[in-house]
């Protein structure tokens, strides 16, 4: 019997070639989209799960409300881990990651600047499951100046030989000894670096000062520990340790600090939530994460899950619609099978076998498609997705299950629908009658277009926002700014280098300052107009030179900027308007601003106020900013050059040549500032591209279904079209008549799509402090686009019918 079903199924696929083609193409494209997006989502969800104890590892973060401003900092004070381990039996182990500077590694007569070396406690490898190729994981990071390199770094300096115990000469400091080589970090690790240096290299890591938040602390909890309970107990650690030091610094008791509405506490974030939930669920300031941390957002996972599901749904709907629409063609077969004794149940089985077969073909084509597009998709999103056909045992069974499920979903309803036809009805039924309308089909088509329209709206909003960000006035002139990112290596020769450049007519102005437009801009508590008190204001701070304002062309609002004419300016500070606002200052120029610090507070005189400019990504509003006149810390230093628009290549050549005279060990690593700015929105840009691609595919699949359905409806109304033509109907009026139903569906789809898309896109826009609007024209445009595409699809079929001689349509009967 099965072979009979299979035979009939295959013959039917062959007989209705158009139908088969539409169905299989739609399903295959839909399934391919689903698989690609599933791979993406699975990849996003799997971060850090390679760690054996992933479920017991937590990151300690500091949450505070100071002066009404809430912040969550992923970095903690040096003694945090040690204290927690000592005070709480629930804590089994801890480790810290820190960052101090970049190092110049010597290899023969070459010197390389390595900026990816972080410090870690010796317990690092007991917490994280990173296998060492060489060395002892327990002792590798114990002694000062011990370095564990990643495979890649080891290869760079030692080739294929075993580097264990070898020394690496570092310019300007003690040599490092290689005590281990670890495998490269897995792609799905929230943190990665080129090498780990023992924390003991820097005695300051043993500090007992609680108010400098500079280390990421990870703790391993004992099995069965309830993290919430531990969090509660941990607040005592705050009172006992942070309390006295804060009192000494602010001159007030912690109780007073709390009474003023402030709070300060330690909390735990599960390791596996860091990648996707840090900002959304834990409100952790991205600014406090390490520079190259990979963060994403669970929202994108939800968003792409929805897209994957909806695209598959569109494809499945095509299948249901075309199969039920076509049912009359098969009614005769059903009738005969029933009269010769088939049960309805057997017929259902037969039709389901057909749809599963079709689905299997589609899955096969989809897999080929996936293999073809994955490399391209990977470059697009910067991932290494892979189908894992052969190295994951689950892949093939999952695909088979998926085929069965989709086959059942798509074929289930049509099977019952077809098998329910009564033999008597079939004899009476005159095929070719009826308009081919069905409430279910209409509803399903409406769903398809709702999805398509919503996706288009989403695409346009994302594009519009990315565009808005790129063109927003940031408060400074962003074009023709060149950033020399490794200017720090100039060290004491910076001034000399600057003078050399200033002599070139192509260079208008240049400034040396600390890094902006990325995460990791340092912040500190400041007190306005007093030296102690309950209400420190959180400022980010930048170290700059005299020419900062001139180079960036930022407007001065009040007072003056740093000037060579005032020798006292090293004790001066310039703040931005946001700072004035948060300090509740009315006339800040001439007032004092005190920077709270471990080695005593420092008081500066405010000499000027600059207009707010966006020195961070537009995800957040401009925060208070303080400028100090001093040489930036070497790794944070960046030389920004404003160049003339004319003779740009010559100017760049001059800069490079000058650089090469100063520095022989490394090249001049420069970028255009606009490019750095764009880098802050890579996630949005990628989302934009991915959404565009999948929206187009969704519409393609929906139109494929519409194409089939239009063909079917027109076939049903062929006779009517003929009669109307004989009576004088023009092609346009026929097109109008046939398109009417489809247009009605699309317009109905808008009613559902508009509010849904509006809601979701507004939610997404909330991620940005500066955002575009979801303007009305976007909705009209999306609807118009879908309407036009759908009409073209229907139009093709209609014109075919309209062009035939009227008499043919009458003969058709």
């Amino acid at each position, binding site marked *: 019997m099965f072979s009979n079903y299979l035979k009939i199924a295959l013959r039917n696929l062959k007989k209705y070639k158009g139908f088969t083609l539409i169905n299989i193409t739609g399903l295959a494209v839909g399934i391919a989209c689903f698989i690609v997006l599933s791979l993406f989502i699975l990849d996003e969800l799997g971060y850090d799960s390679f760690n054996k104890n992933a479920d017991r590892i937590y990151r300690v973060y500091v949450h505070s409300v100071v002066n009404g401003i809430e912040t969550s900092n992923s970095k903690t004070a040096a003694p945090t881990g040690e204290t927690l381990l000592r005070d709480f039996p629930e804590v089994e182990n801890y480790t810290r990651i820190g960052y101090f500077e970049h190092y110049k590694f010597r290899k023969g007569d070459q010197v390389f600047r390595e900026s990816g070396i972080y410090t870690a406690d010796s317990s690092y490898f007991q917490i994280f499951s990173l296998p060492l190729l060489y060395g002892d994981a327990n002792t590798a990071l114990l002694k000062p100046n011990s370095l564990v390199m990643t495979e890649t770094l080891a290869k760079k300096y030692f080739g294929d030989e075993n580097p264990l115990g070898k020394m690496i000469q570092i310019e300007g400091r003690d040599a490092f000894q290689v005590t281990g080589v670890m495998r490269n970090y897995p792609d799905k690790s929230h943190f990665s670096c080129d090498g780990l240096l023992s924390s003991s290299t820097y005695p300051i890591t043993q500090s007992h000062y609680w108010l400098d938040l500079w280390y990421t602390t990870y703790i391993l909890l004992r099995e069965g520990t309830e993290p919430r309970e531990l969090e509660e107990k941990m607040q005592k650690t705050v009172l006992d340790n942070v309390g006295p030091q804060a009192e000494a610094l602010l001159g007030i008791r912690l109780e007073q600090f709390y009474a003023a509405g402030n709070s300060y506490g330690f909390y735990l974030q599960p390791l596996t939530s860091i990648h996707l939930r840090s900002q959304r669920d834990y409100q952790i300031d991205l600014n406090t994460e390490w520079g190259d941390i990979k963060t994403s957002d669970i929202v994108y996972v939800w968003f792409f899950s929805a897209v994957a599901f909806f695209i598959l749904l569109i494809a499945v709907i095509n299948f249901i619609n075309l199969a039920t629409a076509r049912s009359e063609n098969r009614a005769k077969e059903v009738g005969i099978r029933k009269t010769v004794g088939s049960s309805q149940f057997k017929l259902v089985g037969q039709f389901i076998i057909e749809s599963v077969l079709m689905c299997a073909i589609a899955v096969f084509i989809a897999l080929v498609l996936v293999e073809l597009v994955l490399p391209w998709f990977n470059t697009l999103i910067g991932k290494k997705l892979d189908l894992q056909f052969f190295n994951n045992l689950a892949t093939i069974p999952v695909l088979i299950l998926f085929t069965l499920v989709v086959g059942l979903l798509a074929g289930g309803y049509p099977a019952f629908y077809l098998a329910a036809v009564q033999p008597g009805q079939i004899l009476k039924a005159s095929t070719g009658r009826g*308009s081919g309308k069905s409430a279910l089909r209409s509803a399903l088509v409406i769903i398809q277009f709702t999805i398509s329209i919503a996706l288009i709206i989403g695409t346009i909003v994302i594009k519009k926002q990315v565009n808005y960000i790129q063109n927003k006035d940031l408060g400074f002139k962003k074009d023709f700014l060149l950033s020399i990112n490794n200017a720090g290596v100039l060290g004491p020769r910076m001034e000399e280098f600057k003078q050399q450049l200033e002599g070139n007519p192509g260079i208008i102005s240049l400034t040396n300052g600390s890094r902006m437009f990325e995460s990791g801009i340092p912040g500190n508590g400041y007190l306005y107009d007093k030296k102690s008190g309950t209400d420190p204001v959180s400022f980010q701070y930048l170290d700059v030179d005299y020419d900062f304002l001139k180079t960036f062309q930022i407007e001065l609002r009040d007072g003056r900027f740093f000037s060579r004419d005032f020798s006292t300016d090293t004790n001066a500070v310039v703040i931005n308007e946001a700072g004035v606002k948060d300090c509740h200052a009315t006339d800040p120029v001439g007032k004092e601003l005190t920077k709270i610090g471990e080695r005593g507070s420092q008081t500066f005189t405010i000499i000027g106020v600059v207009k707010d400019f966006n020195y961070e990504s537009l995800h957040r509003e401009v925060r208070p900013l303080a400028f100090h006149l001093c040489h930036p810390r070497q790794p944070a230093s960046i030389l920004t050059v404003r160049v003339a628009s004319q003779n740009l290549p010559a100017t760049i050549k001059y800069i490079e040549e000058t650089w090469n005279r100063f520095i022989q060990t490394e090249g001049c690593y420069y970028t255009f500032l606009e490019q750095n700015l764009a880098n802050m929105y890579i996630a949005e840009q990628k989302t934009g591209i991915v959404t565009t691609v999948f929206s187009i595919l969704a519409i393609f699949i929906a139109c494929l279904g519409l194409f089939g359905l239009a063909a079917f409806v027109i076939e049903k109304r062929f*006779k*009517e079209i*003929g*009669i109307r033509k*004989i*009576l*004088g109907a023009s092609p346009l*009026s026929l097109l109008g008549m046939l398109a009417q139903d489809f247009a009605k569906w699309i317009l109905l789809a808008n009613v559902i799509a508009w509010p849904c898309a509006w809601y979701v896109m507004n939610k997404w826009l909330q991620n940005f402090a500066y955002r575009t609007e979801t303007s009305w024209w976007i909705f009209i445009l999306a609807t118009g686009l879908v309407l036009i595409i759908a009409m073209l699809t229907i139009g093709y079929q209609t014109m075919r019918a309209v062009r035939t001689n009227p008499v043919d349509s009458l003969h058709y009967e």
Partner: protein
Amino acid sequence: MIKTTNLTKVYQTDEIETTALNNINFQVNEGEFVSIMGPSGCGKSTLLNVIGLIDTASSGEYYFNGIEVAKFNERQRANIRKGNIGFVFQSFNLIDELTVYENIELPLLYLKVSATERKKMVNEVMEHMQIMHRKSHFPQQLSGGQQQRVAVARAVVAKPKVILADEPTGNLDSKHGDEVMNILTELNEAGTTIIMVTHSPSYAEYSNRIVHLFDGKVVTENMKNKFHL
């Protein structure tokens, strides 16, 4: 009014070439009532369709009101059809989804006749055909005779110069057949040119002239002018 010269229609399928009309020279004057007779497959309906401009000839000339229309494209043919030619079919060819009134109104809609005018014209013709009481019914709710009367009503509502009737009585019993023939005669007497394909010699008697077709050729033409009776 209608004149064909060497009108030929060849149907081409994959392997077989069938000549449905073979050098037909045929003329109908204004106000005539012509019957076309002949065995099944002799090309009667094809001739009627080509004359009605709902099918094209393979070669030859066709003059409608003195204009050569054989090479016209679909749009041009549609323009000639509109308002000039009315059709009545054996199988009625009513649109199932439209009521009697709406079916009859259809040609007027395509002629862009104003709503009030349409109403007047449709009511007039329904009155005349005695189907006023069926105005809101759908075709399936009517008997064959009634359906054909609706079809005739639809064919004449725009007052065309020619009515082409393809076996209008073929699906009707004799009572209803007579009724339809009487209506056609009446229309002819009022000045409408009528060309009718029929199998029935007795209904052919209603016309002025009978043209016999055989294998796509005109074999005889009997003038059966009423004035001779």
